[in-house]
């Protein structure tokens, strides 16, 4: 039982390859000379699509919007998620369980349900679709990522540290600033990065809460449905992989001590 059988090895490595090979093909097709089809193998290789992307104003507008949305949605999620974690990490009161369920709901329900519900709510409240409706939609499902990370870290924080701070003369706000925040800082940073990656990548809820504006995923979706210059989409996809991989990698290293990255099982579309 101490050595894996050959069959198990092949199955495990095959499974991992299955997870990664499609991403390699995206990279490969970013250099193809063929722009009308997905012919394999590519008839030739070129770097010109990177130049084309550089010159495309619509792509840069979408990137800019996505970055702005992700930044602000992450900030809102950081504030609300930390507040919620502070209230629920140690509190024991009736209604605690339903409230934590409520935080998970936006990513537990199909994105399309959340999207339509929010679209209708904005309609009822007569809020015109704008940058801010996209941000609010994203913040809704980003809260849980921050919340999960912060709750996990707060539960590991010894309660006597907070008592010691107050014992030494610090009031509740000084204690938060000087003791709690420094000790949950990396967890918040990790949660914030994951929230950023989630927002930067979101397409379903955005479809319903965006007006005429196009975030990067919306731009990409339209390219997938009606392809024009196919390799351009590949170049953008490669850039997206880089922009989302880095924060995820950073979040992994930030939360690694004492457990695996929180909130992993619990995200999706």
């Amino acid at each position: 039982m101490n050595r894996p059988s050959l069959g198990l090895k092949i199955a495990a490595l095959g499974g991992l390859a299955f997870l990664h090979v499609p991403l390699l093909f995206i990279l490969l097709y970013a250099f193809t000379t063929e722009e009308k089809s997905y012919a394999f193998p590519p008839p030739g290789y070129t770097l010109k699509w990177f130049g084309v992307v550089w010159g495309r104003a619509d792509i840069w507008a979408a990137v800019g919007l996505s970055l702005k949305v992700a930044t602000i949605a992450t900030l809102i999620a950081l504030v609300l998620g930390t507040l919620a974690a502070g209230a629920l990490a140690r509190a024991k009161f009736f209604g605690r369980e339903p409230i934590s369920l409520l935080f998970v709901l936006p990513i537990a329900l199909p994105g399309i349900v959340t999207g339509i519900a929010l679209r209708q709510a904005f309609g009822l409240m007569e809020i015109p679709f704008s940058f801010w409706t996209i941000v609010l939609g994203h913040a809704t499902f980003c809260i849980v990522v921050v919340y999960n990370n912060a709750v996990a870290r707060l539960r590991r924080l010894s309660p006597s540290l907070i008592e010691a701070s107050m014992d030494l003369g610090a009031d509740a706000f000084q204690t938060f600033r000087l003791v709690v925040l420094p000790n949950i800082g990396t967890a918040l940073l990790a949660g914030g990065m994951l929230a950023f990656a989630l927002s930067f990548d979101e397409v379903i809820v955005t479809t319903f809460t965006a007006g005429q504006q196009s975030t990067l995923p919306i731009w990409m979706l339209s390219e997938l449905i009606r392809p024009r210059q196919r390799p351009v989409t590949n170049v953008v996809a490669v850039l997206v992989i880089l922009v989302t991989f880095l924060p995820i990698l950073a979040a992994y290293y930030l939360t690694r001590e004492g457990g695996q990255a929180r909130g992993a099982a619990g995200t999706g579309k």
Partner: protein
Amino acid sequence: MSLATFDLPSPREGALRRFSDLLLRRGHLIVLLLLAPPLIWLGLVYLGSLFVFLGQSIFSIDEFSGTIVREPTTATLLELFRPANFDILMRTVGIATAVTLLCAVIAFPIAYYAARYAGPRAKAAFYLAVMMPLWSSYLVKVYGWKLLLAKEGAISWFAGRLGLDGALDAWLSLPLVGGPSLSVSYTGMVLTFTYLWLPFMILPVQAALERVPASLIEAAGDLGAGPGYTFRSVILPLAMPGVVAGAVFTFSLTLGDYIVPQIIGTSALVLGQAVYTLQGTAGNIPLAAAFSLVPILVMALFLTLAKRTGAFDAM
């Protein structure tokens, strides 16, 4: 042994410090103040809008004017059982089931290897190898499969090189799973979904397997059980909560998706697409709400069953 005499200054008194006094005197106030902002958004606006949307499933649509008739009726809910709509539901549940089974089969060896044989370094590598695809862009992943599945794409090319193009054509000519090409077939759709949700299956199964003590497996061996019997009678039952937890994700994520079927798939609608068209071009919000209730109810049922197997400890 002594300390110098020293007049300790009093801390600055201010509004914040007096507010802090109040918070500490009333322990519930602090919880309330912390919870209020997230609860106002999620509890009031978000939950409220969910209820408003889903609640419209008891209204109906006026066939001529296309406006919503705000009178309670079961007509819209019953419409789900009309053959055309019921087909959509069955098709979606069928795809979700196939995706879940396929995910479980592919995930198990990875999770088993990582849980039982990988050292600490290999385990970290495994974890990252699963986390990276999990968190990388959804659309990019879908796009990757569009490239692979295309008629002129890599899978067809490799099949041709390996002399398997005949087998591929034979598979595509089968009813139900086949189609003009992989990218316009249920096979392609199920493969893409499986790929998208696989990490959600690997992580809980691995977590469940980590909790199977090695001594238990050795004990089974000591008692004369062969590897196959040990696997079936010891490992599989103990891993089951993890599989169920993973299935909660793979099943629910497939039920709600409408983008993959739009990009890869046949012209026959699945549930997500139906909701999307109903709320958009068709403007039939009541029926869209009725359709949306299905995945929510299915998942509620699934979760109740999952809770009994102890699947939540594996999440």
